[in-house]
């Protein structure tokens, strides 16, 4: 009871903070829709981000994450909907809006024949950073991302992880108000991941709003991000980890058999069929009790997993499917 009250109070305080923060939102995206031929990538998605807030966009491949941030960055025109950045309508003031944003697309994009310094200074120049400030901006970002020793090395000679850091650095070298990182740690080593996460947190501490798409839930937890779950082009849930777990609590067991159960058997077990021969119970039954309930069917048990109330099970509860962390 005490724990529920404490959760309730914490949630109220989150809501209060959010109400204040939302008054100065950097990004307000409303009703975004986008289709590619017959495929509807976004179906009326909304997104708000406040200064200093890290928003993790969680979704499987094809959920609409990249389409959403491409629209926010002005790289794609939505079929309908609006995007305001710092009160500026993105599509009628693309130039002004571009100065406020930094985007690191999913694929590493740096000039291999140029040095790290030249890459950073070029993108700073492109974003309108003055000649006198470019060198210090590049040095600052290099320091933040552990690239200082490599400033005069050609980007093509860097390791994959170093290139990934430079790729991200090019997006934040002009200190944008809204930083968008599309799966920044894909293919990165552990050290690079840690460095990138630290940089994102540091940018947020400086007041930048960050949108971060990822498949890796441990990164989201490390970032202490506000989570937006997106599936089939729609935002299905939003909140801090605690809020989402509270709201979409899912616990129980998920088990897979070597043969399907008949409907009567599924009902007797109090389970639901999730996919193929995989079934889920959502009561507090211990594993031993489930095995006993399965009786002779337990001989065909291929696997059994306990569902804990965490972001992964929240995702499962909200979308009906798992977030494939291995996917990229």
């Amino acid at each position: 009871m005490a724990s529920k009250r404490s959760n309730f109070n914490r949630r109220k305080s989150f809501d209060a903070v959010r109400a204040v923060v939302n008054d100065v939102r950097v990004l307000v995206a409303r009703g975004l829709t986008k289709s590619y031929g017959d495929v509807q990538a976004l179906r009326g998605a909304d997104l708000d981000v406040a200064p200093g807030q890290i928003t993790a966009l969680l979704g499987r491949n094809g959920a609409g994450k990249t389409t959403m941030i491409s629209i926010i960055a002005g790289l794609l025109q939505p079929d309908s909907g609006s995007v305001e950045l710092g009160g500026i309508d993105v599509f009628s003031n693309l130039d002004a809006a571009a100065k406020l944003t930094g985007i690191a697309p999913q694929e590493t994009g740096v000039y291999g024949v140029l040095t790290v310094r030249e890459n950073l200074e070029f993108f700073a120049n492109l974003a309108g950073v003055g000649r006198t400030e470019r060198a210090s901006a590049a040095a600052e970002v290099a320091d933040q991302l552990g690239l200082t020793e490599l400033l005069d090395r050609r980007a093509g000679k860097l390791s994959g992880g170093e290139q990934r850091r430079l790729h991200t650095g090019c997006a934040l070298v002009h200190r944008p108000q809204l930083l968008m990182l599309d799966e920044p740690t894909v293919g990165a080593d552990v050290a690079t991941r840690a460095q990138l996460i630290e940089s994102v947190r540091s940018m947020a501490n400086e007041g930048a709003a960050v949108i971060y798409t990822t498949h890796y839930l441990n990164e989201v937890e490390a970032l202490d991000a506000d989570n937006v779950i997106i599936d089939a082009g729609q935002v299905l849930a939003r909140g801090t980890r605690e809020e989402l777990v509270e709201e979409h609590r899912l616990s129980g067991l998920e088990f897979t058999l070597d043969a399907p159960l008949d409907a009567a058997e599924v009902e007797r077990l109090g389970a639901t069929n999730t996919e193929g021969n995989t079934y889920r119970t959502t009561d507090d039954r211990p594993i031993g009790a489930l095995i006993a309930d399965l009786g002779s069917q337990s001989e065909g048990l291929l696997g059994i997993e306990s569902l804990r109330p965490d972001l992964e099970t929240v995702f499962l509860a909200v979308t009906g499917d798992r977030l494939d962390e291995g996917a990229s």
Partner: protein
Amino acid sequence: MDAIRAIVGVQLRIIRRDPWFLVIMFGMPLVIMPLFVDTIGLSLQAEGYGDASGAEQVVPGQVVMFGFMLAGSVGFSVYREHGWNTWDRLRASAAPAPSLLAGFAIPWILIHLLYQVTLLVTGALLVGLRLKGSIIAEFLVLLSYSCCLIAFVLLLTAVFRTINQVNAIVNLGAMVFGGLGGAFVPVDGLPKIAQYLSPFTPSFWAMEGHRAVFLEDGGIADVLPSVGVLLGATVVLAGLAVTRFRVDETKEFFG
């Protein structure tokens, strides 16, 4: 304007880091020039240019033909940005299509112009090309030809999805337009049907300008028709390129 300046700067830097293509493009015509000078010289003398050595036709002819091939590099630069995944980053600067295209066109117009001048100077040293007419008139011919070709390749870039398609058109264009335009042999020596088609090629107008300067002691007024046609074509081609170019269209680089 800032975006144009930034892109021009970075493109020039990239080209400077990998100049081997330019070196090869410079070397090839130098090998070809001496092979044809004497034969073409006899042909020009038969045309009535008694003191012609042949360099007056061969050197500008190579400049015109290899210049066409070099112009393909502007397309290569654009497609390469897609291959390097940097195109979206350029687009994220919100630079409009004309600015992006200008950022790629300006360095290549400068390099193309420098390439032509260097080939002419080297041709003078190698096979005795002599400037009889106005140096300013010759400069105008070179500049207008550079602008026209870069605009043409940008239009190809706007239309075609892959670098291979653009390369094929550029290589074919260099040969066909070069041949029809009189880059190999004077237009008078071509079959009648080819002579009718010649004025529809930029190579023809460039060669007309070069002939006016190198064979006929021509001045600015003598090259104005050539310069006018080439600049007029530049405006039309660049206009079409800007109109047709879609910044959000995916282009395929090699592989």
